[in-house]
């Protein structure tokens, strides 16, 4: 059963609605004692990464999150929180991944936010992307991206530059796109995560 970490950054109705539709059981984590009830975790998040980190710190859950050893998936800003730093609000983050979250550079041909369906290419073998063909489209909405890193990038997408569409290290995973809004491939990814 998935425990969703609650810290007040954005709405999670679409995520929980999708889990329900897929028959994936979930519950909410509001305090440290709640962690042990679940065998995997999701860190959701939309909005401003600095503000989200501030809210997460206020819950007191940060030390527990850093020591989690069960599968943990950050989504969108929830993924960015796993990195060391974001240019959004010049914020220090959880530093589970020693990579940075950067703002898309100005480009005369590409608009920011990166909005819409773009292709995701897995760079490594991992059950998270099982049954998802290379180059499948996922739905993105973001102005900041996680830098590409051969060590931590699980899948990549190209927009203005090549960036991490997902990251993976030990039990920690993050996806920049919104699986709950990404059609059948997004649903497959969530099902895969529920079985990792």
């Amino acid at each position, binding site marked *: 059963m998935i425990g969703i970490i609650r810290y007040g950054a*954005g*709405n999670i*109705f*679409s995520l929980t*609605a*999708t889990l*329900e*539709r897929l028959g994936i059981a979930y519950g909410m984590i509001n305090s440290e004692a709640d962690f042990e009830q679940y065998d995997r975790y999701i860190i959701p998040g*939309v*909005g*401003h990464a600095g503000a989200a980190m501030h809210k997460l710190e206020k819950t007191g859950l940060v030390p527990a999150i850093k020591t989690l050893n069960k599968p943990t998936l950050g989504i969108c800003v929830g993924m960015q929180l796993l990195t060391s730093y974001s240019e959004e609000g010049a914020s220090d983050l959880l530093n589970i991944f020693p990579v940075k979250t950067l703002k898309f550079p*100005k480009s005369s041909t*590409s*608009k*920011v*936010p*990166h*909005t*819409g*369906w*773009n*292709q995701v290419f897995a760079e490594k073998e991992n059950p998270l992307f099982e049954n998802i063909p290379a180059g499948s*489209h996922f*739905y993105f*909405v*973001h*102005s900041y991206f996680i830098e590409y890193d051969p060590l931590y990038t699980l899948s990549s997408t*190209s*927009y203005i530059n090549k960036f991490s569409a997902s990251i993976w290290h030990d039990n920690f995973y993050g996806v920049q796109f*919104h699986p*709950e*809004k*990404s*059609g*059948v491939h*997004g*649903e497959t990814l969530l099902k895969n995560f529920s079985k990792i």
Partner: protein
Amino acid sequence: MLTKRIIPCLDVKDGRTVKGVNFVDLRDAGDPVELAWNYSQQGADELVFLDITATVERRKTMVELVKSVARQINIPFTIGGGINEIADADALLNAGADKISINSAAVRNPALIDELAKAFGVQFVVIAVDTRVMGNKNIVHLNGGRLPTEKETLNWILEAESRGAGEILLTSMDHDGTKAGFDNGLLKLVNDSVNIPVIASGGAGSVQHFVDVFKQTNVDAALAASVFHYGEILIPDLKKVLKQNNIEVRV
């Protein structure tokens, strides 16, 4: 590559889908949730729901609709119509809406754009602009195109972008309902002037019109209602033709 988006638009009144020809005669085109699900299965990239309900119960009705949509479909959707304050937007966000679209309320109170962007992020804020040519200028109109404002369309769009709009939904009222094609001249001018996504709206009548709007203006998305609702254009066929024309789409 980032794909061009095809967006069916569902006008909703009292929980039912309607579409007016030139925004006047409303015809019932079905149950919004069922339509939405069908479109998601057909390959629509996104959906827009415009609520034209005028009753005091509107927010409650809309929140219930948004929840049903979020429960049943797996693509993003935008809600517009009658959003006047932060509390309206907040209720829709918490019900599962990915974006909100505001029109008249932003024209009357442009600072609302700043407030919404600050509260929810620019990606949540779509500014819908209804435009009509008066003399030789494009002028922003309100009330479904009936009420001209003082604002020149491109100036207003640039102001909206600078205040925190994350996307522009531009409807040409001169083209809307005509099925004679999008207003590609204006759309190209706007698309070349802003650094946020632009959704073309008004005038779609054939598959070729979609090819033209993407080829000639490079907008990010194209929206239509009746050609989809009445089955005149099927989304898989449309995307096939776009792909044949080297326009990136999700299939």
